């Protein structure tokens, strides 16, 4: 496939994954806060901005976090490069340049998602409608993902889409794991029955759609250790970093000129395997540094893919 189109398809897929992550994250967080009535609005809503890595951009425009500002910044604010609205514009542009690659049914599903987000955000999304709005987006994304698997040939275009999703998803998981360190508990504080039984770690699991799988597979109460171990090292959970890297590498195997990118993936896998989970579970700043390094590793993998396969001059996506 053409290098230019590979790049379009790659970014299209990253933005789809980003929309899915953002929508799910807001939904989960919203529900979490309903059970924490006493938390100050700033402390309650700022974590969403931190997880999204948007502290600087957000604080340029707002001094404090609250529900209205944070949700509208994440959903409809054109000043936020990662807002649902901006991500959908990026998807639209990339879809346009790669239109011929996609089966018509898939093209239609993606463009109706773009249209839905644009239409709904023309007015402010009220709290009462927010859940519906985000649920609809999540459902449309599931349909798109189904159509990608079922209607696209599992060829290079498909693999670029997969690789982009894996990178975006691993990044999201690592960010979600980083928040409890800024806010709430570590394992050391646990004793007896906690009032909120590690609600924050449970929220982390829910934010990446892994809560049920944790219960089924880990079969222990939610804990920092269990959660870190599951979301970093599980090789069968779609949201787990290890899973994402394994699958990413499997995609890369099929490409020529893949040595640089595969070396980066390999190093990152080793870095994952070397994690001292117990230590990370008890030391928030160690955890933060560890995850920060991991995220840089993901950037390196992305750069290796881009320099190997995409056209030399980066275009605005």
């Amino acid at each position, binding site marked *: *496939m*053409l*290098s*230019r*189109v*590979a790049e379009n398809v790659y970014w299209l897929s990253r933005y789809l994954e980003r929309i899915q992550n953002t929508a799910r994250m807001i939904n989960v967080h919203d529900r979490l806060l309903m059970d924490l009535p006493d938390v100050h609005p700033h402390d309650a809503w700022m974590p969403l901005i931190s997880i999204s890595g948007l502290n600087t951009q957000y604080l340029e425009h707002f001094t404090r976090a609250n529900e209205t500002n944070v949700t509208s910044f994440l959903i409809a604010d054109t000043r936020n490069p990662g807002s649902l609205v901006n991500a959908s514009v990026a998807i639209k*542009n990339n879809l*346009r*340049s790669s*239109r*011929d690659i996609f089966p*018509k049914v898939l*093209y*239609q599903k993606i*463009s*109706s998602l773009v*249209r839905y987000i644009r239409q709904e955000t023309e007015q402010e999304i009220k709290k009462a409608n927010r859940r519906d709005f985000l649920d609809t987006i999540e459902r449309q994304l599931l349909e798109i993902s189904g159509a990608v698997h079922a209607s696209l040939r599992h060829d*290079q275009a498909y693999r670029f889409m997969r690789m982009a999703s894996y990178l975006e998803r691993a990044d999201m998981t690592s960010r979600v794991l980083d928040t409890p360190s800024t806010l709430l508990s570590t394992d050391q504080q646990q004793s007896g029955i906690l009032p909120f039984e590690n609600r924050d770690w449970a929220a982390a699991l829910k934010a990446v759609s892994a809560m049920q799988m944790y219960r089924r597979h880990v079969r222990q109460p939610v804990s920092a250790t269990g959660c870190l171990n599951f979301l970093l090292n599980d090789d069968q959970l779609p949201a787990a970093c290890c899973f994402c890297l394994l699958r990413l590498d499997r995609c890369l195997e099929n*490409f*020529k*000129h893949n040595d640089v990118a595969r070396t980066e993936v390999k190093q990152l896998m080793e870095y994952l395997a070397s994690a001292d989970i117990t230590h990370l579970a008890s030391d928030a700043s160690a955890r933060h540094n560890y995850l920060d390094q991991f995220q840089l590793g993901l950037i390196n993998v992305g750069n290796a893919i881009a320099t190997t*396969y995409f*056209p030399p001059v980066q275009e605005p996506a």
Partner: protein
Amino acid sequence: MPNSRWSKYKSPCYDELFTEQNTPRHAAAALTAWLDTLDNDTLAKRRLAAELAIRQMGITFTVYSDKGNIDREWPLDIIPRVIDANEWRTVERGLKQRVRALNRFIDDLYNDQAILNDGIVPRDLIETSANFLPECVGMKPPHNVWAHICGSDLVRDTDGTLYVLEDNLRVPSGVSYMIENREIMKRCLPEVFSQCQVLPVDSYTSNLRRMLASLSDVANPMLCVLTPGEYNSAYFEHAFLAQEIGAELVQGRDLVVKDDKLYMRDVDGLIKVDVVYRRVDDAFIDPDCFNKDSTLGVPGLMRAWRAGNVAIANAPGAGVADDKVVYSYVPDIIEYYLNEKPELASVPTYRCNDPDVRDYVISNLDTLVVKPANESGGYGMLIGPQSTPEEQAQMRQHILDNPRNYIAQPTLSISTSPTITDASGTDNREHDALTFAARHVDLRPFILQGEQMAVTTGGLTRVALVPGSLVVNSSQGGGSKDTWVVDNGTMDSQQQRYDTGEHGLGADGQSTDLNASQTNRSDSLNQQQSNKQE
């Protein structure tokens, strides 16, 4: 039919669906009767369904504006335009004849120039044409064909005669909309097709693919569609066609010429391209040769083409025959090369480079249509009867400044076809809101010529949505209609196959009709195989 929807329908000129006595034409009878059974609510729902389908399918065209380029949804009027299959056979034959002659003409101009030496077409006319490319002299493209894809504009005058208005031999667009229009009609009027014997239109893309492949010696050639980019007005079509024919949709920056061969930048490395269906104008296809600043083309493409390492459709330089002055010579060109009488009429054309004719044109600007020789999309025209004295004075000056660049034609009374309009009812009753009104239409069929020839079944009907307007271009507020070639069994069954038994430029003397070979699959396969062996 006292309650008929059609009782009030009236056309000021020839109408495609109704006779002067306001009875339906034979081929349109089933359609108009069926439409009469729909109440206004149903009709409104069908129209809405079509709009939704167009939005959902993403069928758009792009309009240039001050605010940037805007995607507009493709405008389709759901009342089809109907053509009798008997008539269409004649038209199809005439179109093939025309394109065959034009290709002989282009090939002659770039090689022997016999037609100039014999004084049929003035040498001066060709040598002053901006579209005559010296870089193409001496080229022998495959099958001696230059214009592989031609979109001719046809209009019908008061007496029912179909005229060829122009031959678009450069990068004609619209065929994707023809195909999608049918797709939408199937969705929103599903029950009417079985009653009306409408011939299908979807063989175009497989014919296009076969035609393009016939330009290369490679067994399974790599095809690509070269687009100026995603902001071009016809980008939808470029993507559509690439998808339909299994070609890569490429932009100039995706391609590179090395050792006089054309490659595309693939994630696996460079991959050789055998055939380019380019939708970029001559002037922009190769900055080494033509417009130096072009970023739409590929440096070295002309070299690769001249070396015979890549086929380009349409071939560079084919536009020399797509000139409104050359147009006026087409009847002579047909007689000269084919020794046949033209089967399709051309509009009488006044060439302003002749002083006497020029004087006539200038003193009759209020009744004539004046066109620049080299513009498309309806730009730069003067429609005399609808123009102001200021516009006429301006055109007069243009003609005097550059007489070679202008031609004039009598204003035809272009035919109409019924079109749904929102009548502003005096009593605001919802179900009185939709009526059928006569709107002017033209027709753009597409003619393919490679090793074989094929013509679309019908073509793209464009309709001027503004009452009385003759401008059908979608960029200027025109709409479109599905075009039905209806075969309702009145002709001799022997003639029902689309086999005109003609011979094109193929040296083998076989039937050159792509559609004919499709009517019988086993024949088609045999023929393909025998062609490959030759």
